[in-house]
Structures are given as structure tokens and as C-alpha cells.
């Protein structure tokens, strides 16, 4: 196992996951909170941080579960159930820990946690990890990078929408419509990152 090579691959994958393969703007995952919660930069930041944490941790846990339990038993198709259970259990556990040890943090962050369980991006990251056959170290990079990419996208969206709060938008376009157009423009912009790291 070439640690040096793997760390480099992990870094490249992480970089790609943030910019060129952004899990939200290129792969359309994690959009439900994107359109509803992204009005204030502060809220978006909190949600994004929670997503980074949960995505990295659950990607790792799911890697371990997949390669050490499901594959040896030839039950790969059970991964959907296993991943969802692990994600739900992990979020539940984190919620309990935060609630117990830091009510302040719970007040700021804890309300987002149930939202995250059904965030398709979290499950999506784990499923991508399986399809692309990442190693353990690369999965760390991928989970972390994808989370950061999602955070970046949602914060940018919140920032833009805060600016647009007083703009005159046609009635049918208000709300989800304009959010989607912003998302499209952002996706367009992110495509421009292709080729930065060859």
C-alpha cells in the first residue's frame, strides 16, 4: 500500500470533489435543503459544517462496513440498507452527544442534524465511494472534499440570495425558480475549474 501515492490521490480527489466534481452542482445531490434553507449565510454555514462532519464520518464508517462485512458475505446489494442505517444511527448518536455535552452547540447546529439524515448527498457520497472503488485513505479525502464542496455551494447560494432579497423578481420565478437559475449559473462557473489540476 503506497501511502504517499494514496495521500496524493486523496488530495486530488478532495480538490476535485470541491470544485470540478462538486457533489451538488455537478451531480445534483443534496438539493432539497439547498432550495429551502439557503437564505442566510450564517444558517447555511452551520448546515454546511454539519454536512462536512457527517459526510466524512459516514463515508469512512460505510467503507469499513462495506469492505469488511458486506463484501466477505457477498451481500453487496444490502449496502443501501446498511448505509442508511449507519447514517441514521450516526446522526442520532451525534445529536445525543452534542445535546449532552454542549447545549449551546446543540442550539446552533443540532436542529440541522435530522435534516441531514435524509440528505441524498450523504448517502450519495457513500454510494460513489463504492462505485469508484476508493481505498480507505482516498475515501477520507473524498468525503471531506464532497462535504466542503457542498458547503461552498450552499454558502455561495445563500450569499447571492441575501443580495437578491430586495430585487424585483417575476412572480412565478420567486423562490425555487430563481434559486434554480442561480444554481445553474454557479454550475456553469464551476465547470470553469476543469483543467486547473491536470
Amino acid at each position, binding site marked *: 500500500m503506497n501511502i504517499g501515492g494514496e495521500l496524493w490521490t486523496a488530495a486530488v480527489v478532495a480538490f476535485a470533489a470541491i470544485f470540478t466534481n462538486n457533489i451538488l*452542482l*455537478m*451531480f*445534483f*445531490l*443534496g*438539493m*432539497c435543503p439547498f*432550495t*429551502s434553507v439557503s437564505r442566510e449565510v450564517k444558517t447555511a454555514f452551520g448546515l454546511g459544517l454539519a454536512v462536512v462532519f457527517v459526510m466524512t464520518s459516514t463515508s469512512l464508517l460505510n467503507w469499513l462496513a462495506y469492505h469488511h462485512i458486506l463484501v466477505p458475505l457477498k451481500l453487496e*446489494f*444490502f*449496502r*443501501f*440498507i446498511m448505509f*442508511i442505517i449507519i447514517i*441514521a444511527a450516526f446522526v442520532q448518536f451525534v445529536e445525543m452527544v452534542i445535546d449532552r455535552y454542549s447545549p449551546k452547540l446543540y442550539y446552533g447546529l443540532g436542529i440541522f442534524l435530522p435534516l441531514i439524515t*435524509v*440528505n*441524498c*448527498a450523504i*448517502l*450519495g457520497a457513500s*454510494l*460513489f465511494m463504492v*462505485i469508484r472503488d476508493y481505498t480507505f485513505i482516498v475515501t477520507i479525502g473524498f468525503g471531506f472534499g464532497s462535504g466542503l464542496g457542498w458547503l461552498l455551494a450552499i454558502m455561495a447560494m445563500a450569499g447571492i440570495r441575501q443580495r437578491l432579497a430586495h430585487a424585483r423578481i*417575476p*412572480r*412565478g*420565478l420567486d423562490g*425555487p*425558480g*430563481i434559486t*434554480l*437559475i442561480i*444554481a*445553474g*449559473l454557479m*454550475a*456553469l462557473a464551476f*465547470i470553469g475549474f476543469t483543467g486547473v489540476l491536470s
Partner: protein
Amino acid sequence: MSPNGGTPGTRAIIFDGLWHNNPVFRQILGICSTLAVTNLVLNTLVMCAALTMVLAASSLTVSLLRKFTPRNIRMMVQTLVIAFYVIIVDTSLRGYWPDMSAALGPYVGLIITNCIIMGRCEAFAGTNKPFGALTDGFFNGLGYSLLLLAIAIPRELLGMGSILGFPMPYFSGAWDRWIIMVMPPGAFFTLAVIVWICRAIKPREEKIA
């Protein structure tokens, strides 16, 4: 729910699912899973069929089990039921249509987290009769599919000059293809336009339920 608290009539369910409460442009739910595959009409059709099937079957199952399921684990049971139907669909696709399975990639598995299915099970199937739940699931799925086809058709037509793989008269010839439509931003823009059109036709009314 109808005024007298029972399962609403079938006609009401159908129109609710298809238009009044359409999951995509009214509720803006559950687009994550399918938006990625809307650059080809055929893939969209398969994906929507899969989702409608899972939605209808899950609604039916949850409704059948509603009198036995303890209240505090009902969300877990719902998730389990949905996950199982998705596994069945995914496994079947992989065995009998491997090219399509490869094209749809992880998005079939992501139907599990699709908010529509969970939403309908929670909001409707858990408290209504099986036939009503099945109809509701099916027509919500149909409403979803129609909207997504409305996205996929312009994307494939303008981006690749074909529909369902068949080249279209003007678009596959003189038309200069809009590659942007085949790429992710195209999906966002097309959906935005569709939502705009639908919402302009039917602005949100305050329904006194």
C-alpha cells in the same frame, strides 16, 4: 384529507398528485435523484418508472402495515420498506438491462432518500386505506414523471438533436447543438423555466384544507 376525515375520493387523489400538489413544481421535492439523468429521455423514462413503482409499492405496503406498525418506529419501517423495493428494482435492472443500469449509476439507489416517497408515506399512506394509498403513490409518481419528461425532452432535443435516440428532423441537421443542455447547468435552467411556467399558470393559493 377530505372534510369528513376519511380517505379522499379517488378523483381528488388523482388530480392532487398530477397537478394541484405536484411534487416537483409545487413542493419542489425529490428532484435530486432524477435531475442528473434528464439529459436523455429514455433514461428519464426508466428512472421515473422505477420511482413510480417504488412509490406506489411502498405506499401500498406502508398502508397495509399501518395497523400493525408501532408509532415510534414507523419512520424506520418506512425507510426499510422503501429501501427494499429500491434494491429489488436495482437488482432487476442490473440483471436484465445492464446497459441502463450502468447509465443510471448510483441514482437508482438514491431513490431511497428521495423526499417524495418518504413524504407521501408519512403524509398519506400511513393513515389511509391501501387502495387510496396505492392510487396516491402512483399518481404522485406520474405527476413527477410528467414534469421530468418536460425537462428531458428539451434537453435531449436542443442538446443532441434527438428524442429517445431517434434523430429529429430539423434538430439533428442544421441545428447547432446546445451542448450546455446536456451538461448540469442545462438541467438547472430547464427546471427553472418549467417551474416558472407552471407557477405562472397556477400561482400558489392559500388552500383552506
